[in-house]
C-alpha cells in the first residue's frame, strides 16, 4: 500500500521566556529577555499508509500532540519535511482541511448551547457539502455512533462521553481520509472509553479511514491501534506493531495487595513473580504472564492470606519506555 503521509526529520523547537524570581527578575526580563529553547519534537520520521490505525503514546509533554498539530497544519515545524496527501500542511492548510478531520479532546468545536445537529448543518455549509450527500452521510454516522436522540439535545446537557461521540461525528461529515484525534478518551469513564474505542474501530473497518490518535492510556492503543509509535522527550522510542509490544512488554502485570495483617513476605515462591515494593500492609508484585498466569498468583495469595484489597494493573507507560530503553530495541 502507498504511504499517504510521510514525515521526514521533523523537529519542533519552542522558545519559552525565562524570568528570574522577584521584582529584579521581572525588570530584567523586560529589558533583556532570555529565552530557553526546548525541543518538543526531535528529528522524527515515519510514514503512514492508508487504512492504518496508529497510536501515538507517551507521557505528558512527550511531543505527541505537537506532532499531530503539525500534521494537521495548526503548528509549523522548525525543521523537516511533511507530505500529507501531497499537501504541505504548513503552506496549504485550508486546502488540506477538506481532506482531514481533527478532534481535540480538550478543545470542543460544537456550539455549546445548541444541539449538535445545528453545528452539523453549519459544518455542511462550511465544507461546501451538497445537501443530499450530507443528509445520507449524517444518517449513516448518527446510526453508527448511536446518537439518534442525543444530537437534538443542547450540547451542554450531554455527558462527556456523548459529547465526544458528537464531536467525532462533526469531524467526519466531510468524509476525511484521515482522522486525527488528540486525547479522545481523556476524562471519560471506562464504559464511555470502551464505546469510543469500539466506534473508532468500526469506523476504520467500514470506511477504511486512516486514524491517528494520541493517548497516554495504554489500553486505548492496545485495543484499537494496529501500529504503535511511542514518543518520549520528542524522540520516537518505538515504532512497530502493537502485537510486538504486547508480547514483549505487556506480558507483565502489576498486582497490588493490601493485607489485613503485616507480613515480611507473602511466601509465594512462584516462577516469574517478583516483589517490587514492600510496605507495611501493601505489597506490590510484578508478574511475568508468559511464565505465570495472573489467576494462579491471585488464588495463591487468597489461599494464604487475609486481604483487604487487591488490584491488577498494567505497568505504566513510563515503565514500558524504560524497559524498551534497557533492551535497546
Amino acid at each position, binding site marked *: 500500500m502507498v504511504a499517504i503521509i510521510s514525515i521526514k526529520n521533523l523537529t519542533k523547537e519552542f522558545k519559552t521566556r525565562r524570568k528570574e524570581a522577584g521584582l529584579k527578575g521581572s525588570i530584567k526580563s523586560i529589558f533583556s529577555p532570555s529565552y530557553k529553547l526546548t525541543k518538543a519534537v526531535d528529528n522524527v520520521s515515519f510514514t503512514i499508509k492508508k487504512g492504518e490505525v496508529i497510536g501515538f503514546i507517551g507521557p505528558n509533554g512527550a511531543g505527541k500532540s505537537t506532532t499531530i498539530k503539525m500534521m494537521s497544519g495548526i503548528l509549523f515545524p522548525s525543521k523537516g519535511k511533511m507530505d500529507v496527501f501531497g499537501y504541505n500542511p504548513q503552506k496549504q492548510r*485550508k486546502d488540506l*482541511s477538506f481532506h482531514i478531520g481533527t478532534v481535540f479532546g480538550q478543545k470542543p468545536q460544537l456550539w455549546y*448551547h445548541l444541539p449538535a445537529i445545528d453545528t452539523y448543518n453549519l459544518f455542511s455549509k462550511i465544507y461546501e457539502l451538497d445537501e443530499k450527500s450530507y443528509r445520507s452521510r449524517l444518517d449513516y454516522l448518527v446510526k453508527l455512533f448511536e446518537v439518534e436522540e442525543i444530537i437534538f439535545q443542547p450540547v451542554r446537557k450531554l455527558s462527556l462521553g456523548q459529547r465526544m461521540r458528537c464531536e467525532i461525528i462533526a469531524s467526519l461529515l466531510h468524509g476525511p481520509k484521515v482522522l486525527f484525534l488528540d486525547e479522545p478518551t481523556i476524562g471519560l469513564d471506562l464504559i464511555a472509553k470502551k464505546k469510543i474505542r469500539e466506534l473508532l474501530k468500526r469506523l476504520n473497518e467500514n470506511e477504511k479511514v486512516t486514524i491517528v490518535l494520541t493517548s497516554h492510556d495504554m489500553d486505548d492503543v492496545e485495543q484499537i491501534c494496529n501500529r504503535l509509535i511511542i514518543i518520549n522527550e520528542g524522540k520516537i522510542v518505538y515504532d512497530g506493531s502493537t502485537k510486538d509490544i504486547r508480547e514483549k512488554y505487556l506480558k507483565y502485570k502489576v498486582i497490588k495487595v493490601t493485607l489485613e495483617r503485616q507480613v515480611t513476605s507473602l511466601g509465594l515462591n512462584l516462577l516469574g513473580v517478583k516483589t517490587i515494593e514492600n510496605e507495611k500492609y501493601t505489597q506490590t508484585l510484578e508478574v511475568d504472564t508468559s511464565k505465570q498466569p495472573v489467576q494462579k498468583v491471585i488464588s495463591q495469595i487468597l489461599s494464604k492470606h487475609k486481604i483487604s484489597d487487591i488490584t491488577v494493573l498494567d505497568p505504566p507507560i513510563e515503565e514500558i519506555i524504560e524497559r524498551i530503553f534497557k533492551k535497546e530495541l
Partner: protein
Amino acid sequence: MTLTKYIEISKISVYNSLAYLLDFFSGSLFIGLIIFVFIQLWNVVYGPSAGLIEGYTINMMVWYLVLTEAIVTSPGKILEEIGDEIKTGNIAQNLNKPYNYVGFKYASSMARTLLRFLITFGVGSLVAYVFLGGLEVKFLTLPIILVSVFLALTLHFLIMVLLGILVFWLEDASATYFIYQKIVFVLGGMLMPLEIFPTWLEKISAALPFSYIAYHPAKLFVNFQWSNVSEVLLKQLMWIMIMIVIVTIVYQICIRKISLNGG
C-alpha cells in the same frame, strides 16, 4: 458558496445567544437607566430656558446619546473573546477549517450585534420618548443613517479585533478593553458631542477613527445635513479599509508566531 458559509455562521451564532435570553439582553435593558439619568442631568444643565448648547437642543442631546450608547455597547465582548482565544491557543481550532478566522468572527458577532443594537436602541428610545419627548427626523434620511450605523459597527468591530489580536503582545485583554472603551466614551464622542470640547480637542477627536463610531453617525441622526452625508460615509469607509489592512497584517504576524511557537 462562500457567502452562504458566513450567513450560516451568523444564523447559528444568533441561535446560540438566544439560548440565554435574559443574559443576552440584560445589557440592553441597562441603557434605559443611563438615558433616564442623563435626561435629569441635561435638564439641570439646560436649565428652565432650555435653549441651545453648541447648536443642540436638549432633545437632540439625549437622542444623540441613545444612538451612540446603542452603537458602542451592542457588540459585547468581542475584544476579550478574541484575546482569550489567542492567549489560550484555542484559535488553532479555526486555522485548519476552510474559512477565514476574522470573517468567521465578523459573521458571528455582527449578527448578534445587530440584534442587540435593535433592542438597545428600542429601549433607549422608549425611555427618551416617555421622559423627555420625541425627535424630529425625516423618514427619508433613516436608510442613510442605518448605513452609517452599520459602517460604525463594522469599524468598531475591526478596532476591537485588532486590539484583541494585540493581546498576544499586550497580555491583558480586559485592561486593553477598558482603555479603548474610555477613549470611545470621550474622544469618540459617545457621552456628548465633540463640539462641547475646546476647539483644538474637538478637531483632533473629529479626525480620529473613534469619532466615526459614535459622534459622526449620531450627529447625522439628530441633525441631518445633506452636505455631511457623503463625507461621513466616505470617511467611515476609508477607516474601515485602513483597519482591514492593519488587521490583516497584524493577524498574519500573530498567527505565524502562534503557529511557530504554540499558543
